[in-house]
């Protein structure tokens, strides 16, 4: 069932990509990432798209965490706003997220990482500033994915706030 879904999804995606490719007949515009299905000749610093390290950004409403892992999932660098010396309410600011991004980029470049794919989770104040901080710190962002968890009516969230 899972394999059937995979095949269905990849076939739908292929159709979408072919449509997009036929619409953008320029050749230089590429909106969707290369699938693992052996299509691409795209290399970022000699590395294929599937083997680039992944940078997870978890942007909650009170804080922003940044973690860099390699393509297999092993963690390399981990920072957050609290680790930059911000406390309490100052952690949930865009400036704190930008600082965290810069420090994460600095640590990543010392480990020899240049190109990175970004995965964002959550809708918090540090969602965009963290990515800005990465580029300011000298890391090259190759693609941005959104991995915000959307329940299909799973767990019941807390009750509505009355202010």
């Amino acid at each position, binding site marked *: 069932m899972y394999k059937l*879904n995979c095949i269905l999804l990849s076939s739908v995606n292929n159709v979408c990509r072919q449509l997009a490719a036929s619409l953008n007949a320029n050749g230089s515009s*590429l909106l969707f*990432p290369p699938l693992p299905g052996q299509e691409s000749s795209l290399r970022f610093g000699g590395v294929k798209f599937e083997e680039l390290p992944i940078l997870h950004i978890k942007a909650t409403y009170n804080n922003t965490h940044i973690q860099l892992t390699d393509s297999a999932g092993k963690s390399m660098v981990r920072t957050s706003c609290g680790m930059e010396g911000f406390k309490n309410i100052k952690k949930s600011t865009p400036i704190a997220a930008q600082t965290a991004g810069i420090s994460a980029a600095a640590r990543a470049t010392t480990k020899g990482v240049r190109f990175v794919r970004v995965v964002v989770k959550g809708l918090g104040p540090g969602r965009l500033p963290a990515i800005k901080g990465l580029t300011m710190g000298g890391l090259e962002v190759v693609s941005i994915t*959104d991995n*915000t968890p959307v329940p299909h009516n799973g767990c019941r969230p807390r009750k509505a*706030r009355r202010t």
Partner: protein
Amino acid sequence: MSRHLRFVARTVMVQNGDVDAAYNTLNRILTQEGIIDTVKRKRYFEKPYVERQRKNFENCRRIYHMEMARKIAFISRTNREDPWLGC
């Protein structure tokens, strides 16, 4: 996401190093798909009676806007052939 293929859905490649444009494209796609809306709404629990009211309101709003757009498009037609030709 662990049960689905990764880096396939909700992904945008950055072109020519323009991260802002890529982020804006991603945001636009997410808003059009209604994901940002859903995430904001599901932060707190929405009681069934509130949900019914909201859905009803959105239905009425959609009907009103469609009809208004149709009316405006009809009224602002110019350069059409003479409907009373020959009279």
